[in-house]
Protein backbone atom coordinates (compact mmCIF):
# COMPACT_ATOMS: atom_id res chain seq x y z
CA UNK A 1 0.00 0.00 0.00
CA UNK A 2 2.82 2.39 0.84
CA UNK A 3 4.19 2.22 -2.71
CA UNK A 4 0.92 3.13 -4.38
CA UNK A 5 1.28 5.95 -6.89
CA UNK A 6 -0.73 8.78 -5.41
CA UNK A 7 0.19 11.44 -7.95
CA UNK A 8 -0.34 11.80 -11.68
CA UNK A 9 -3.84 10.47 -11.62
CA UNK A 10 -6.33 11.91 -14.06
CA UNK A 11 -8.60 14.42 -12.34
CA UNK A 12 -12.26 14.77 -13.14
CA UNK A 13 -13.22 18.14 -14.63
CA UNK A 14 -13.49 20.63 -11.79
CA UNK A 15 -15.19 23.95 -11.05
CA UNK A 16 -13.11 25.96 -13.51
CA UNK A 17 -14.32 24.01 -16.52
CA UNK A 18 -18.07 24.26 -15.93
CA UNK A 19 -20.30 27.19 -16.84
CA UNK A 20 -21.78 28.60 -13.61
CA UNK A 21 -25.40 27.57 -13.24
CA UNK A 22 -28.07 28.77 -10.90
CA UNK A 23 -28.19 25.37 -9.19
CA UNK A 24 -24.42 25.20 -8.66
CA UNK A 25 -24.17 28.83 -7.51
CA UNK A 26 -27.02 28.53 -4.98
CA UNK A 27 -25.34 25.37 -3.66
CA UNK A 28 -21.91 27.02 -3.39
CA UNK A 29 -23.43 29.95 -1.54
CA UNK A 30 -24.95 27.59 1.04
CA UNK A 31 -21.39 26.56 1.85
CA UNK A 32 -20.06 30.13 1.78
CA UNK A 33 -22.82 31.51 4.04
CA UNK A 34 -22.61 28.59 6.48
CA UNK A 35 -18.92 28.97 7.05
CA UNK A 36 -18.88 32.78 6.97
CA UNK A 37 -21.42 32.74 9.81
CA UNK A 38 -18.48 31.87 12.10
CA UNK A 39 -17.54 35.58 12.22
CA UNK A 40 -20.98 36.71 13.35
CA UNK A 41 -21.32 33.76 15.74
CA UNK A 42 -18.01 34.56 17.47
CA UNK A 43 -19.09 38.22 17.78
CA UNK A 44 -22.34 37.08 19.42
CA UNK A 45 -20.45 34.82 21.87
CA UNK A 46 -18.14 37.74 22.72
CA UNK A 47 -21.20 39.98 23.26
CA UNK A 48 -22.71 37.44 25.69
CA UNK A 49 -19.39 37.05 27.53
CA UNK A 50 -19.13 40.84 27.87
CA UNK A 51 -22.73 41.05 29.12
CA UNK A 52 -21.91 38.38 31.74
CA UNK A 53 -18.74 40.20 32.81
CA UNK A 54 -20.03 43.70 33.57
CA UNK A 55 -21.42 47.00 32.28
CA UNK A 56 -18.06 48.50 31.20
CA UNK A 57 -16.96 45.49 29.16
CA UNK A 58 -20.47 45.17 27.76
CA UNK A 59 -20.32 48.77 26.53
CA UNK A 60 -17.17 47.91 24.55
CA UNK A 61 -18.60 44.76 22.93
CA UNK A 62 -22.01 46.32 22.31
CA UNK A 63 -20.26 49.38 20.84
CA UNK A 64 -18.34 47.19 18.38
CA UNK A 65 -21.36 45.09 17.40
CA UNK A 66 -23.56 48.17 16.82
CA UNK A 67 -20.87 50.20 15.02
CA UNK A 68 -21.14 50.57 11.22
CA UNK A 69 -18.78 47.61 10.85
CA UNK A 70 -20.73 45.51 13.37
CA UNK A 71 -23.99 46.47 11.67
CA UNK A 72 -22.54 45.34 8.34
CA UNK A 73 -21.47 41.98 9.81
CA UNK A 74 -24.84 41.50 11.55
CA UNK A 75 -26.79 42.45 8.42
CA UNK A 76 -24.71 40.02 6.36
CA UNK A 77 -25.13 37.36 9.06
CA UNK A 78 -28.91 37.76 9.11
CA UNK A 79 -29.08 37.27 5.35
CA UNK A 80 -26.57 34.38 5.57
CA UNK A 81 -28.64 32.76 8.33
CA UNK A 82 -31.88 32.92 6.32
CA UNK A 83 -30.18 31.84 3.10
CA UNK A 84 -28.37 28.96 4.78
CA UNK A 85 -31.58 27.97 6.58
CA UNK A 86 -33.52 27.80 3.31
CA UNK A 87 -30.60 25.97 1.68
CA UNK A 88 -30.58 23.49 4.54
CA UNK A 89 -34.32 23.05 4.12
CA UNK A 90 -33.70 22.25 0.44
CA UNK A 91 -31.15 19.65 1.51
CA UNK A 92 -33.62 18.08 3.95
CA UNK A 93 -36.24 17.93 1.17
CA UNK A 94 -33.67 16.32 -1.14
CA UNK A 95 -32.62 13.88 1.60
CA UNK A 96 -36.23 12.73 1.89
CA UNK A 97 -36.06 11.91 -1.82
CA UNK A 98 -38.20 14.76 -3.16
CA UNK A 99 -37.46 17.60 -5.59
CA UNK A 100 -34.40 16.01 -7.17
CA UNK A 101 -35.49 16.86 -10.73
CA UNK A 102 -34.16 19.96 -12.48
CA UNK A 103 -37.40 21.97 -12.43
CA UNK A 104 -37.88 21.53 -8.68
CA UNK A 105 -34.21 22.31 -8.02
CA UNK A 106 -34.51 25.55 -9.98
CA UNK A 107 -37.75 26.49 -8.25
CA UNK A 108 -36.25 25.85 -4.80
CA UNK A 109 -33.19 27.87 -5.83
CA UNK A 110 -35.33 30.88 -6.72
CA UNK A 111 -37.22 30.46 -3.44
CA UNK A 112 -33.88 30.50 -1.58
CA UNK A 113 -32.73 33.71 -3.29
CA UNK A 114 -36.06 35.53 -3.05
CA UNK A 115 -37.03 34.09 0.32
CA UNK A 116 -33.75 35.00 2.00
CA UNK A 117 -34.03 38.61 0.76
CA UNK A 118 -37.66 38.93 1.88
CA UNK A 119 -36.91 37.36 5.29
CA UNK A 120 -33.88 39.65 5.74
CA UNK A 121 -35.98 42.77 5.00
CA UNK A 122 -38.67 41.42 7.33
CA UNK A 123 -36.08 40.91 10.07
CA UNK A 124 -34.77 44.46 9.65
CA UNK A 125 -38.34 45.77 9.84
CA UNK A 126 -39.21 43.79 12.98
CA UNK A 127 -35.93 43.84 14.93
Amino acid sequence: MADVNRGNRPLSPHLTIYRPQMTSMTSIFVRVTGNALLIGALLVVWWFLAAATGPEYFAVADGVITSWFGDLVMLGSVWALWYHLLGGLRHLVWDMGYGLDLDSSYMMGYIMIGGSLVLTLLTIAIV
Partner: protein
Amino acid sequence: MAFLTDRKRASGMGSAKEGTQHHWNMMVSSAGLLVLVPLFIFTFGPMLGQPHEAVVAYFARPFPAIVAALTLVVGFMHFKNGVQVLIEDYVHGIMRKVLIIAMICLSYAAAGTGLFAIARIAL
Protein backbone atom coordinates in the same frame (compact mmCIF):
# COMPACT_ATOMS: atom_id res chain seq x y z
CA MET B 1 -30.86 -7.35 -0.87
CA ALA B 2 -34.62 -7.05 -0.48
CA PHE B 3 -34.31 -7.28 3.30
CA LEU B 4 -31.71 -4.49 3.59
CA THR B 5 -32.89 -0.95 4.32
CA ASP B 6 -31.31 2.02 2.47
CA ARG B 7 -29.72 3.13 5.73
CA LYS B 8 -28.16 -0.32 6.30
CA ARG B 9 -26.68 -0.35 2.81
CA ALA B 10 -25.05 3.08 3.39
CA SER B 11 -23.74 2.52 6.93
CA GLY B 12 -20.07 1.65 7.25
CA MET B 13 -19.20 2.53 3.65
CA GLY B 14 -16.47 4.91 2.49
CA SER B 15 -12.88 5.28 3.67
CA ALA B 16 -13.69 6.52 7.17
CA LYS B 17 -16.74 4.23 7.66
CA GLU B 18 -18.60 6.97 9.51
CA GLY B 19 -19.90 9.22 6.76
CA THR B 20 -23.47 8.05 7.29
CA GLN B 21 -23.34 9.12 10.93
CA HIS B 22 -21.81 12.46 9.92
CA HIS B 23 -24.61 13.07 7.45
CA TRP B 24 -27.25 12.03 9.97
CA ASN B 25 -25.74 14.41 12.54
CA MET B 26 -25.98 17.22 10.01
CA MET B 27 -29.63 16.37 9.29
CA VAL B 28 -30.55 16.29 12.98
CA SER B 29 -28.73 19.51 13.88
CA SER B 30 -30.12 21.33 10.82
CA ALA B 31 -33.65 20.27 11.73
CA GLY B 32 -33.08 21.60 15.25
CA LEU B 33 -31.62 24.86 13.96
CA LEU B 34 -34.58 25.26 11.61
CA VAL B 35 -36.63 25.95 14.75
CA LEU B 36 -33.94 27.55 16.92
CA VAL B 37 -32.52 30.11 14.47
CA PRO B 38 -35.76 32.08 13.84
CA LEU B 39 -36.47 32.05 17.60
CA PHE B 40 -32.92 33.27 18.27
CA ILE B 41 -33.07 36.04 15.64
CA PHE B 42 -36.24 37.49 17.14
CA THR B 43 -35.16 37.18 20.79
CA PHE B 44 -31.48 38.13 20.50
CA GLY B 45 -31.88 40.74 17.74
CA PRO B 46 -33.92 43.34 19.67
CA MET B 47 -31.39 43.18 22.54
CA LEU B 48 -28.50 44.49 20.43
CA GLY B 49 -27.71 48.06 21.46
CA GLN B 50 -29.89 47.88 24.60
CA PRO B 51 -28.52 49.04 27.97
CA HIS B 52 -26.66 46.46 30.07
CA GLU B 53 -29.38 46.15 32.75
CA ALA B 54 -32.04 45.50 30.12
CA VAL B 55 -29.93 42.79 28.43
CA VAL B 56 -29.13 41.05 31.73
CA ALA B 57 -32.78 41.20 32.84
CA TYR B 58 -33.98 39.85 29.48
CA PHE B 59 -31.60 36.88 29.37
CA ALA B 60 -32.36 36.07 33.01
CA ARG B 61 -35.77 34.95 31.72
CA PRO B 62 -35.98 31.22 30.89
CA PHE B 63 -37.18 31.35 27.28
CA PRO B 64 -34.61 33.77 25.78
CA ALA B 65 -31.81 32.15 27.80
CA ILE B 66 -32.68 28.60 26.76
CA VAL B 67 -33.13 29.59 23.10
CA ALA B 68 -29.78 31.42 23.06
CA ALA B 69 -27.94 28.58 24.83
CA LEU B 70 -29.38 25.87 22.57
CA THR B 71 -28.76 27.93 19.41
CA LEU B 72 -25.10 28.49 20.26
CA VAL B 73 -24.43 24.87 21.27
CA VAL B 74 -26.31 23.20 18.39
CA GLY B 75 -25.06 25.88 15.97
CA PHE B 76 -21.41 25.38 16.82
CA MET B 77 -21.72 21.58 16.68
CA HIS B 78 -23.35 21.99 13.25
CA PHE B 79 -20.49 24.31 12.26
CA LYS B 80 -17.90 21.83 13.56
CA ASN B 81 -19.23 19.11 11.24
CA GLY B 82 -19.86 21.47 8.32
CA VAL B 83 -16.48 23.17 8.30
CA GLN B 84 -14.84 19.73 8.42
CA VAL B 85 -16.36 18.92 5.03
CA LEU B 86 -15.20 22.28 3.67
CA ILE B 87 -11.63 21.64 4.87
CA GLU B 88 -11.63 18.08 3.54
CA ASP B 89 -12.61 19.38 0.09
CA TYR B 90 -9.96 22.07 -0.28
CA VAL B 91 -7.07 21.39 2.10
CA HIS B 92 -4.79 18.37 1.94
CA GLY B 93 -1.99 16.74 3.88
CA ILE B 94 -1.00 17.76 7.36
CA MET B 95 -2.65 21.18 7.04
CA ARG B 96 -6.01 19.43 6.71
CA LYS B 97 -5.60 17.66 10.05
CA VAL B 98 -4.28 20.79 11.76
CA LEU B 99 -7.21 22.88 10.49
CA ILE B 100 -9.86 20.29 11.38
CA ILE B 101 -8.47 19.93 14.92
CA ALA B 102 -8.25 23.72 15.28
CA MET B 103 -11.85 24.19 14.11
CA ILE B 104 -13.15 21.45 16.43
CA CYS B 105 -11.35 23.11 19.36
CA LEU B 106 -12.67 26.54 18.34
CA SER B 107 -16.23 25.20 18.06
CA TYR B 108 -16.19 23.65 21.54
CA ALA B 109 -14.46 26.72 22.99
CA ALA B 110 -17.03 29.10 21.50
CA ALA B 111 -19.98 26.91 22.52
CA GLY B 112 -18.56 26.53 26.05
CA THR B 113 -17.88 30.25 26.39
CA GLY B 114 -21.36 31.17 25.18
CA LEU B 115 -22.94 28.63 27.52
CA PHE B 116 -20.95 29.92 30.51
CA ALA B 117 -21.85 33.53 29.70
CA ILE B 118 -25.58 32.81 29.34
CA ALA B 119 -25.61 30.66 32.50
CA ARG B 120 -23.91 33.45 34.43
CA ILE B 121 -26.43 36.03 33.17
CA ALA B 122 -29.41 33.74 33.72
CA LEU B 123 -28.56 32.47 37.22
